[in-house]
Structures are given as C-alpha cells and as structure tokens.
C-alpha cells in the first residue's frame, strides 16, 4: 500500500490530512505488518478523519461500524433474513424438510453487517470501528476473532476467512478501559494535540483566507489555553472553527474584544470561559 513513511505523509497530505511523524510511522507499520490500528486521543483531533484519509489514499472502500452501548452481533456481524426465510419455506411446498433446511441457511438469506462485509469483499477495504469504548465488553469478544485472524464463524455456514485483509482502524475516546486482549492485537497510536508548526499548517490548509500572522496568533492562543487546567481544552476541530469565525468576522488582528466575544467557539463550559478570561487578562477592558 505504501512504500515508505514519507510516502504515507505525502499521500495523506494530498487528501488534506496532515499527519505528524508518529501518525505516519504507525500507519505505515500497520499496513506493512497487517495489524489493526487502535487510535486513542481526545475528541476532535482527527481520529475518524485518519481512517477516511487512508481509505481515500488507498482507493479502498470504507466500511464503518459505529459502536454504541448495546451494539450486538446482529448489528456488527451478520443476521439471518427471517422474513425471506419464511417466504422461502412457504413457497416451496413439495420438497422435503431436509432440502428446505439446507437451503434456507445459505448465503442468499444472510444479511451481512459491517464486519462480515469488510471480511468478505474482494476489493481493498478500510474497516473503521468507531468509538469502540462505547460498546459493551461482550462486543470486544466478538472483535477478537476478526482482529487476530480476519475470519468470522457463522455456525450454520462455516468459517468465512478474508481473501484480502482489510486495513482496520479502531478509535476510542478512552471512556472505558479496553480489554488487554483487544489491545495486544492492535498497534497502538495516541493522537494528541499537534505541535504548533503542524497546527499552523492544518489551519492554513482548512482556512486559506486567514493571514499568516493571524494564523500564528490563533495557534498560540489555543496553545496557551491547552496549558491551562480546563475541563475541556480546545481541540484541533475547535481551532479550525475559531479560524473560520475570525475570518467571517473580518478580524485582521487579535485583541481583547475579539477574543472575548469568540471564546465560546473554543471553550464549551462556563467555568472554563471564566477561568480563561481571568488568566488572559481579558477583563482589563
């Protein structure tokens, strides 16, 4: 899929995803070693975007399994199409029960869900298992077979093995500690907040209309906010939103009034806004 780490960064950059060296290295290794990639990090640093960008680069189909509390086998793996099975039974009246039974548990009556779809396909596939930490512990058990051997066992049919291994990305917000068994089957990547230089490039890529000096100031203010002890520090997504806001307001430099008016774009808790206002001396107005 990729020839070198630099190749990964260059091709991801073409799709509009600027990867840090850590991200590029790990993606390269995941592709080379054929192991799933577990991505952790705060909300809004581009975990899901990474999977989409990889899919775009590799020209692969993106299959997405969105996890939530209570997601189960029939939502993740496969389900039998009961209505169709009933129709089949009532349609074929003259055959013996044995014939019918072998027939209704065939591929035709199987409804594939994301995991089975990703395993069965012949074309290159990127499988995104989003917000794995939201799913129950039982769900992790289901994932183990898929992640280590890239196969799924359907009791009535036998084992379906991947002809072409999908590139698997799991994301997690660390809302719950994932089990050790799941972790050791994956390469681990933590995406944190980017360095100032990388963040400037990200802002410039997404909001090209903003001047270079203002972009630098934006990134510095966000960096200062992240160093504070806040309930929810602003993430890359918020930085980009803020840049958009400033562009829309037509601001060409940052001053107290502009920052105070737009702080709500960056911080989502009243306590945080109060604290940041105090620390940045915004009340001197």
């Amino acid at each position, binding site marked *: 899929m990729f020839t070198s*780490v630099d190749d990964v960064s260059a091709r991801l950059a073409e799709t509009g995803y600027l990867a840090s*060296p*850590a991200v590029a*290295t*790990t993606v*390269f*290794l*995941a592709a*080379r*070693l054929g*192991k799933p990639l577990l991505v*952790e990090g705060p909300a809004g640093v581009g975990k899901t975007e990474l999977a989409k960008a990889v899919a775009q680069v590799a020209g692969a189909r993106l299959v997405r399994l969105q996890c939530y509390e209570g997601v189960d086998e029939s939502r993740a793996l496969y389900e039998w199409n009961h209505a169709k099975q009933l129709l089949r039974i009532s349609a074929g009246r003259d055959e013996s029960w044995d014939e019918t039974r072998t027939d209704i548990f065939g591929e035709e009556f199987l409804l594939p869900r994301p995991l089975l779809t990703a395993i069965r396909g012949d074309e290159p596939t990127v499988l995104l298992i989003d917000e794995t930490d939201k799913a129950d*512990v039982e769900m992790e058990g289901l994932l183990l077979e898929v992640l280590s051997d890239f196969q799924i066992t359907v009791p009535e049919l036998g084992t379906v093995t991947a002809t072409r291994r999908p590139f698997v990305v799991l994301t997690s917000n*660390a*809302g*719950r*500690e994932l089990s*050790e068994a799941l*972790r*050791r089957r994956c*390469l*681990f*990547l*933590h995406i944190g907040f980017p360095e100032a230089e990388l963040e400037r490039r990200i802002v410039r890529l997404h909001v090209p209309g903003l001047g270079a*000096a203002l972009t*630098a*100031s934006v990134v*510095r*203010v966000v*960096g*200062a906010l992240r*160093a504070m*002890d806040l*309930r929810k520090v602003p993430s890359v997504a918020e930085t980009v939103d803020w840049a958009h806001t400033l562009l829309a307001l037509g601001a060409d*430099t*940052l*001053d*107290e009034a502009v*920052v105070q008016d737009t702080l709500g774009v960056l911080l989502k808790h*009243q*306590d945080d806004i109060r*604290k940041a206002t105090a620390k*940045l*001396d915004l009340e001197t107005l």
Partner: protein
Amino acid sequence: MSDVAERITSLVGALRAHGVRIGTGESVDAARAVETLGLADRELLREGLAATLLHGVGQRAVFDPVFDLYFPRGVGGPDGGPADRAALRDRLAAALAADDPAALARLAAEAVDGLGGYGSSPESDGWSAYQTLERLRPQTLLARVRADVRGRGVSGAGFTDRLLDDELRRRIEEFRRLVGAEARRRVAERRGRDEIARRAVRPTADRVDFLFANRDQLAELRRAVRPLARKLATRLAARRRRAARGTIDLRRTLRSSLSTGGVPMRPVLRRRRPARPELVLLCDVSGSVSGFSDFTMLLVQALHDQFGKVRVFAFVNRLDEVTGLLDHGRADPEGLGARIRAEATLTGWHGSSDYGAALGEFAERYGSAVGPRTTVFVLGDARTNLSDPNLPAVREIAGRARRAYWLNPEPRAQWGTGDSAAPAYAELVEMHECRTARQLSGLVARLLPV
C-alpha cells in the same frame, strides 16, 4: 541483527520492570517494526517501537526515557572542547528565543558535558543534571530572552504578547527535561543501562507513592481525576446491573406459575429497592498526607452523581465540613488544599494532627450524618502524635454506619511503628493500604457501595 534483537529484549525487560505488560508477541512485532523501518531514523524507530510495544497513553512517560537509554542519540560527549558557562548561556538564550528544538538538544548535551561532570576516580564519577542546571540556571534567562524576542518583533505586538512568558517557561522546562535525559544517558554509558533504566526512570503517575509524590506528579494525578472517575462510573454501573439480577422471589414466582398450571416457567427475581447510597468522607489534610486526601476528595466529588449524598469532612486536630468547597464548578483542583486550610477550622491550639480529638468531634457534632445507608471512609495515616486514639468514637461511628473503611497511604509494614495507631483502628474498621492512584482506583471500584 543479533545485537538489535538483544537490545530490544533488554528494552522490553526494562519496561516490564516498570510495570508495562508486554508479551512475547509484542516483542516479535517490535523486531518486525525495526526490520521494516531500519535504524537510520531514530524518531521513526521511537514511534514504531511505541506503537508495537505500548497499550496506553500513560505508558509513554516511561517509554521515552527508557528508549533514550537503549537507543541513545550518540555515544560519548559532544565534539569540540569544553564550553564555558557564559558562552553556553548566550547560545541557550538565542536557541530559546528562536524556539529551535534541535539546537536545544545539542546545547543540553554540551551543557552536561561541560558543567555536569563530578568526581575524578573511575568508581565515583558521574554526570549530574542537577549540578548542570544549578550552574547554568536557565530560568534566569527569561527576562533576557523576552527582551530579545520583543526586540525582533516576531512575537507580534498586542494581544498574543501576553502569552510570551508562559511559552518561554515551557521551552525552558523542555530544556531542563533534555538535560535530565542527557545526564541519564551519560551515566548509563558508565554504569550499565539496565541499572539506570530501573532506578532513574520515574514510574507512571498512577504508581507513584502518594506520600512521596512531588508537585508535578500531584498535578498530573489531578488531571487524571476526571478520566479515572468516568472509568470508575462505568465499572460501578456494571456492578449495579449485575447486582440488579438478584435472587429469586419465591412468593411471586409461585403466584405467576398458577397461570401455567403450577409449573414455574418464568422465575421472578426479587426487585431491589433503588436506594442511592450515601457517602461520608473523613479526610486528614495535615501536611504529611494532604496529597493523598486531596486526590481522593476530588475523585469522590467527580463521582458524586453516583450517590444520593456525599458529605466530606476535613480535619487536622479539629474537624469541619468542607462539602461546599468541593462543589462542582467551584472546585479548582490546584488550589483546593489551600482553600480548605484557609476557609475551614481545622486546627485548635497546635498544628499537628490528632485523630482522637477530630474523630471525637465528628461523633459529637456530626453524628447524625451517619445512618444505616451511609458508607464511611476515613483517609489518613493514623499517626496520632502520641495522643489518645479515642477508640470509642470510632466504634460508635462504625457501629452506626452501614460500612466503614479506612484507607491508609502508608505501606502495611509501617503500620503500628512509632506513633501509628493503625493496628488499633484496624481492629474496629476494615483498613486497606492505599499508596498509589492505581491501588486507590482498585479499592474504590471494589468498596464503593452500589
């Protein structure tokens, strides 16, 4: 390649010694990663090994210094003669002003080489980060660098200028870290890597002893409170779900079996009364154990929506309720300890802790806070400064509460030594050793009522 294999296995060994669980499978993956990435680029190698060997964010703090020891940036000292202090300071100021990480790393190596060496005999000599930083005093460069940056006008006048000081402080902090890593590397060349990796690398924050944690580590622990509370909340919820699948209600099972001809087709489970448990925390906040108490108070406060009522009391030798100070929103974790000591009446006519008096005062003044639904936690080292431990008061509290536990931040071996009344209290109240955040979260998940 065998040298690399040996180096990876000893790196893995050092990480395991720090409590990072790594299996053979991961070691093999790490070796494959090295094979794929090559040894040319050290930073790529670092990321590759981290991706294959680590399983969590917290482990990264241990991994980086250990990696620096086993895959050092260079061998021996930097080229060129010994640098003198004034010239080093000049160049450091320039590098800080320019925010040039590569130059900072180079300067750290030169500084340790020029200023950090001590001793002359081959047995006792070494390299000291502390001595290097004492002689170089990078923190005193702040004003000079600030003037330099302002003079060049790159900082952009006006609003962002006020951020400059903090940014420079962070760069200086980074330089101090680099000096520490460099000194460790130089010592490791002399003394053998394995020993330095075991001794000189700090453990992860959740394994730091509460009683010996420094300011940075306590700050790191405070930041970990919210994610930890979220994890514990899910664990408590799971316990609650399991507990809800209770025992069979025989009367209602038989009653419902009448409709199926007396055959109990569907067992009916006893319903649990949805009583929200109440929690009372008694915290010793005297100097010796305040780090432990502050952390536990914050953790319990973050879990407050799991309980019907949480009341927190702090004491040194007098006791006062501090529940209000911990309110959501008001709780500024950093200043919590100072605020409690400023706003609550905790000491009488002397400043050292007195468990007997404080617990007696609790039983007397706030006895009604403890009822049959209340679980009481006492946090403290049970060191009474040789005053009366007041066992009847403890017996009274424990007798009235549904459950009572004592969390002691001292190692079990030290209970009962000196002025510790731990064994006497442990006879009345279930006492647990609780030295690290890891132990605490285990205990909280197990002991908290659901």
